[in-house]
């Protein structure tokens, strides 16, 4: 294992970010428990970034664990597999973890309790597989980024194959408060993670593997260093703890000192970033032939009796998880799927967790700490906190005035919506909500503009069709008229010749 240390000067020059209370304990100090099988599972069809998957089973079908139940549609999408054996009860609208609280498409599965797997292809030495075969099997296992964004892992690998990648970064920073699922995973399954990461390294053709772990997780760093010891291409790096260290660009800059261009990808600087959970899932998929059917989730928050990290089947409802964590001690002020900074607030405990959910939080009033926003005092705290170097107050002002285009000009597209600005704002202005609103609005306008363009095409096609039909009709009339005239002329001629013959 090569020893890599971040230059102190880079540490000193890094000014962005915030240091929220970590709240990682007691969950971070306890081993991962098994959440077990709930009475009903709902597999969301849209639990990955990109297009929703298309169901390939029917209501009433019996499926086995790891069996494909919905296939990827289009270029950016991922397969969905049954997370246990059981019967498909319904396919259709079900409560989903979405900020709108609106339902989404899902497959409801009733477990039969046997938890039987489909045929699994065990591969003793997956490191010998060809890079394309690794990417193919990662896609077949339905693996998505496990850090929260749920970007299909195979798509990322394909992007890597197109541009030349020299470094794979494994993201073990886990900078969000409360969450400790990656921390526990690194302590308990360090071997799986390193082996999976070496497969990712092979699939992308990169030479170096850097594992970035924040210095508030010393046990995880030790465990990962031990697991990485035999491999010279792997380095485990201690990185400073600050939020949002786990954001792709910030992590790349901290580790390598380079920054991908605005609007560009990490691959533009020869880097690809994967979460540690993704690496572990890749190892399970290639070595043991297991599709992604479970993940580790932190169940925590002030309203939860016994916070704990759990191995959870994809599609398990929140209510089951909260119950397994000892239930609620008081009425939560807010329920969140994901981390407290970037997670999704959900209306009730009926929603299921997807592949990208890293936490389930039941937060108390004191923890949410919501207050009425007051006017901006132009203190500039948000500008200092912004990890991208934007001016959140200026963007929010423009969005408030309805000038979305201007907000875009000063960097709305580069915003990570990490929430650091809103966290430090002394006036408690919901800055991220402004940015999320503006982005959604711009996207909705773009969608509507495209739709109207298509309708225009339809209208023009219809007009053209009508003109053609009218022309053809007119031509036909003209032809018939000509034919009739010709027929009449012929008749007349025949008559004339007949009378001539008669007279003759």
């Amino acid at each position, binding site marked *: 294992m090569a020893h890599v240390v971040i230059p102190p000067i880079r540490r000193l020059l890094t000014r962005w970010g915030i240091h929220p209370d970590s709240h990682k304990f007691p969950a971070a100090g306890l081993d991962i428990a098994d959440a077990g099988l709930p009475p009903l599972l709902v597999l969301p069809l849209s639990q990955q970034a990109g297009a929703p998957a298309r169901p390939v089973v029917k209501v009433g079908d019996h499926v086995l664990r790891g069996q494909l139940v919905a296939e990827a549609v289009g270029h950016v999408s991922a397969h969905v597999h049954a997370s246990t054996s059981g019967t498909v009860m319904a396919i259709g609208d079900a409560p*989903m973890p979405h900020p709108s609280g609106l339902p989404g498409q899902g497959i409801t599965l009733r477990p039969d309790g046997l938890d039987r797997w489909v045929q699994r292809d065990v591969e003793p030495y997956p490191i010998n597989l060809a890079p394309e075969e690794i990417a193919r099997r990662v896609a077949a296992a339905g693996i998505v980024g496990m850090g929260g964004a749920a970007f299909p892992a195979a798509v990322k690998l394909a992007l890597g194959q197109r541009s030349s990648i020299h470094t794979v970064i494994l993201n073990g920073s886990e900078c969000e408060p409360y969450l400790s699922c990656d921390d526990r995973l690194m302590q308990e399954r360090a071997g799986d993670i390193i082996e999976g990461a070496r497969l990712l390294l092979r699939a992308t053709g990169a030479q170096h593997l850097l594992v970035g772990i924040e210095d508030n997780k010393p046990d995880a760093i030790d465990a990962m260093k031990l697991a990485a010891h035999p491999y010279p291409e792997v380095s485990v790096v201690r990185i400073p703890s600050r939020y949002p260290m786990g954001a792709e660009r910030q992590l790349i800059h901290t580790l390598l000192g380079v920054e991908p261009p605005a609007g560009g990808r990490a691959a533009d600087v020869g880097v690809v970033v994967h979460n540690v959970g993704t690496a572990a899932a890749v190892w399970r998929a290639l070595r043991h032939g297991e599709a992604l059917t479970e993940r580790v989730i932190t169940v925590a928050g002030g309203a939860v009796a016994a916070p704990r990290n759990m191995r959870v089947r994809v599609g398990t409802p929140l209510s089951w998880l909260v119950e397994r964590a000892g239930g609620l001690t008081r009425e939560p002020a807010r329920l969140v799927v994901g981390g407290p900074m970037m997670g999704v607030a959900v209306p009730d405990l009926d929603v299921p967790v997807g592949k990208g959910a890293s936490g389930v939080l039941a937060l108390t009033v004191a923890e949410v700490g919501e207050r009425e926003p007051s006017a901006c005092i132009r203190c500039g705290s948000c500008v200092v906190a912004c990890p991208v170097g934007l001016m959140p107050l200026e963007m929010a002002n423009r969005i408030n005035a309805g000038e979305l285009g201007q907000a875009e000009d000063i960097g709305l597209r580069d915003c990570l919506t990490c929430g650091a600005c809103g966290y430090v704002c002394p006036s408690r202005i919901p800055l991220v909500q402004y940015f999320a609103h503006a982005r959604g609005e711009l996207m909705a306008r773009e969608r509507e503009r495209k739709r109207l363009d298509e309708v225009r095409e339809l209208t023009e096609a*219809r007009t053209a069709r009508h003109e053609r039909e009218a022309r053809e009709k007119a031509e036909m009339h003209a032809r018939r008229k000509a034919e009739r005239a010709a027929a009449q002329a012929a008749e007349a001629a025949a008559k004339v010749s007949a009378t001539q013959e008669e007279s003759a």
Partner: protein
Amino acid sequence: MEQMITAVMSLAAIGSGLGVVLGVAARKFAVEGDSRVEEIVAMLPAANCGQCGFPGCEGAAQAIVEGEASPTCCPPGGKVVALAIAGHLGITLGDDDMEEAPKIAVIEDAICIGCTKCYRLCPSDAIVGAMKQLHGVFAEACTGCNQCADKCPTGAITMQPLPATAGTWVMPKPVMAA
């Protein structure tokens, strides 16, 4: 005498030369009407529904360019078209004269008699149906131009806002304290 001829000849030469230049320029750089009208027509949905109160989309474009109508006068186009036109002409739109969510035609199954009047009228072929068969609307192709609803003999067609789904939902703008 000679001087006079020189002057007349040279002036005639200059005059005819310039005349030729002007004639060529008039043909080459000819502007047929206001080019902005055509540009605006290209932005409008081309439904020619007449809801704006002008004769067709071209009439509306003329009125918008001349400042007689607001860019928001087109209900099928809605916010998107209004913003595009306003941006093109450099007009600022007020917040309040913006149309709300786009609307589309919805056919009430129980009242539709299958008369095919609506589907023959629809400018974007958004309605499908046959004689004495229940008609349906392709939501993606409907601009909500209201022509079908005007002609429906039983009043089965109404304009309703597009249903919100998780895919089209937009985070609401935060309410700011004064």
